[in-house]
């Protein structure tokens, strides 16, 4: 016959309220005593049924609370505004920090390099040429005389099938030009 204290211990065991040492004692009792095992099974079943079938009560959500929640969610997702002065201080810190000396120096060298080379390296537009000869009577062809640093546009009369022999140099670099005639 189980005592009241033993019954309460089994109840506490089912609810997960016992220490490890006490739980071991209760487990030993359940294993040894069929009456204790029966009570344990009964209490465990009752606890499971209550946990799974307990009706959930939902608090009514007021409109104010609803909009407050949305407002809080939006506020959380937005980054904190940074004061301009703080940001500038931070930028100066980034540029002059010892940790960033490699990217900062590389960017500085690249910037100076681009600035110095922009007049040395010819941009692609320097090589592109658009030529239009709207008249039906005249045609044109163009070429670069590299050695004389001259771009020549030769206009000829179509009736004379012309221009051949006018120049000493071969029309070169014609392929890198856009010609619309």
């Amino acid at each position, binding site marked *: 016959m189980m005592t009241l204290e033993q019954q309460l211990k089994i109840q506490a065991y089912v609810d997960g309220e016992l220490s490890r040492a006490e739980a071991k004692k209760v487990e030993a009792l359940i294993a040894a005593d069929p009456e204790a095992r029966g009570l344990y099974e009964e209490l465990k079943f009752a606890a499971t049924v209550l946990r799974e079938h307990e009706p959930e009560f939902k608090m009514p959500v007021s409109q104010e609370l609803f909009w407050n929640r949305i407002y809080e969610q939006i506020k959380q997702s937005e*980054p904190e505004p940074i004061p301009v002065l703080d940001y500038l201080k931070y930028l100066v810190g980034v540029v002059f920090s010892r940790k960033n000396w490699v990217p900062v120096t590389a960017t500085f060298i690249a910037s100076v390099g681009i*600035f110095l080379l*922009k007049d040395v390296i010819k941009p692609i537009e320097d090589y592109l040429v658009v030529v239009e000869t709207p008249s039906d009577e005249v045609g044109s062809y163009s070429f670069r005389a590299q050695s*004389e640093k*001259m*771009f020549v546009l030769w206009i000829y009369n179509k009736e004379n099938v012309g221009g051949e022999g006018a120049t000493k140099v071969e029309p070169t670099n014609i392929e890198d030009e856009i010609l619309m005639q």
Partner: protein
Amino acid sequence: MKKRVFKYCRFFQVFLIAIALMLPAICAKAANLKLEIYLVWGSNEEKLPDPKYKKLNEDLAKKLQKIFKWKHYFQINKQNAEVPSRATKRFKVSDKCDVEITEMPGPQVEVKLYGEGKLINRTIKALTKDEMLTIAGEDKNETAWFVIIKLLQEN
């Protein structure tokens, strides 16, 4: 949150600072053009075709001699021209010939050549101090005309 925003943007910020510093230099490309426009006559005869013409300066004549078959070059007209940034100006190079020049974005110009008021040719190309633009054509009696545009200065 503040720290996280800073951390992820670090390299991008350094890059932006560099671009911001370079921007004035990059944008300073729009310029007024100072040009020289020549109208030149090419011939195989040494004699001046018209007493008003004069011999072309030696440097330019030598350049033309190396490119074209004519032996002698005479300057009919030479004018200093100025084309403001993004503007168009028309210059009279002879009684029959006009040149219209437009300063365009980048180092490019649009050059329109008019003969007796009629558009003969339109060319768009970069005009640099390193390269002259010559529009030329053959004329009667084995002669030729040359309109040479030379960039003197951009400012």
